[in-house]
């Protein structure tokens, strides 16, 4: 993981219009992906995911992740079609204290009568640039056997 990619994560999260989703897996290995509208990067470079409900599937899956070392991933989709996928491990759940209370007030200031079950801190391990134009260029460079040939055909009528 490079600092440059982490900076891009921070940049994307700072942009209005970026959509963030978090993907977790349950005890059977089934994946689940949900929006994470409050996602942010903290000063230590960890992703901060706010979980509002104690009994939500994501909250329970994140608990399973910290208990049994299951991976999680977060996808950021920017307005300019930029897509970053961050895979990581769950580092910590904050359930009490000044930092938790700050996030609690933030949630309630935006949603009204809402609650906050935990503030999950996720340590990024890898960041993949999944922006289509970037990945397309990489694939065409490094995997030139995966073209459909019609893309290379000379179109006579255009000559």
């Amino acid at each position: 993981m490079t600092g440059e990619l982490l900076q891009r994560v921070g940049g994307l999260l700072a942009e209005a219009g970026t959509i963030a989703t978090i993907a977790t897996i349950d005890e059977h290995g089934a994946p689940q992906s949900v929006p994470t509208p409050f996602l942010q990067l903290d000063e230590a470079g960890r992703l901060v995911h706010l979980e509002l409900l104690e009994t939500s599937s994501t909250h329970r899956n994140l608990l399973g992740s910290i208990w049994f070392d299951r991976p999680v991933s977060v996808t950021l989709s920017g307005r300019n079609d930029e897509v970053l996928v961050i895979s990581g491990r769950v580092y910590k759940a904050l359930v009490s204290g000044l930092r938790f209370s700050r996030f609690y007030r933030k949630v309630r200031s935006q949603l009204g009568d809402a609650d906050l079950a935990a503030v999950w801190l996720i340590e990024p391990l890898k960041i993949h640039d999944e922006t289509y134009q970037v990945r397309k260029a990489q694939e065409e460079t490094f995997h030139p056997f995966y073209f459909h040939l019609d893309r290379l055909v000379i179109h006579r009528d255009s000559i």
Partner: protein
Amino acid sequence: MSYALLKRSLITDLDTVAARYPDVPRLIILKTDVQRRGVFYADAALELLDETLHQTTGTHIFGARDGKTAVRPESLLLRDGTSIITTPTPQEDDPYVVDVLDGDAWLFDNGTPVEPVDYWPAPAYYAKKSRSGVPMKHIVSARPQRLNIFPYRYCTFWNNAKGCAFCDIVVQLKKGRDLLNIPAKLDPVEVGEVIGEALKEQGRFSTIFLTSGSITSGERPFDDEVDYFIALLKEVGKNFRTHKYPSQMIGTAFEKEQLKRLYDKTGLTSYTSDLEVLDEGLFNRYCPGKREWIGYKEWKRRLVDAVDVFGYGRVNTGLVAGIELAGPHGFQSEDLALERTLSEAEDLARQGVSTVFIVWSPRPDTPLGKYKNASLDYYIRLARGLHQLRIKYRLPIDHDSYRNCGNHPDTDLSRILPLWESEL
């Protein structure tokens, strides 16, 4: 060294035990072992302690394992939000050591760093005094998400020397009164006011908890205890816009009429009454006051009655796990103890009563204080067994969960109980 690298490079005794129970989280096994062995705070760890930021010892109804009253962290939080409720323990008893690594507090086992820990954060109201000039933390104390009311720090079972054999409530009452000026009996109005002050802190507390020593007096035995609880809960309830509020009380096993009164007249939403040990012979031996006033079978029957009043999944009993193996009168093997305990717990579970346990901390100044508690394997097997009973009988334990209590390894496992409502 990063945490991830550190974790990979060291193998502790804990990991060896954890490998035998791949279905039980290592963090919960660690919590259980820390509760079993206790903690010792190194000087550097005590230097991290800041009374304006962290809760310190001294407010609890029960004493420390080392018998001292000194300023130390009240307890610890693990990375998954699990509380470790433990007490300072003499170093010669082989406790975990809390020391500092890279500026942070860590649990160490035989010199090996095991896990980072946080000290419990101090709530805002801890800095304030009540109307009678007592520090508010001595009226209402806190856990990470719970407000504790210990309104009466005496137990009348001790009047004729029939207190429980593991309990140091009376010794602690004297220490609290002499060293910290903690009132022995709280004024309900003052309690209500302190609760109101505590609730000004947003995002801190999820439940109100109430327990005291037994009060045998009254027109019917324990009527005075019930009336006192009602007075307290009514004052607490004045802070809420709803009649009912998330709350738990550990009380004596009351008669059904007393339970109804308690439920109808207050905001109380759950009820716990501790049998302490699930074997009639050991109950009679170690809880002679409970035997004299109620008895084992009647205690169980009253717990079942309480389900009619408070609802399925809102009633439970607590065990001081380990005393069933202590000394010459205990079970001769952990297998036998486990079989007996889980069999009795199942009898309660099928009638809607859950069983939870705390890891017994042998305390000085108690008749059982000279014995050791059980093995880590025993506690893990007990936690698994009680959790499995909750699954089998579809018994929620939200009111005594990691958020609302934090002292039970078995209810930590139940953080991922099936969500039966999703089948509706």
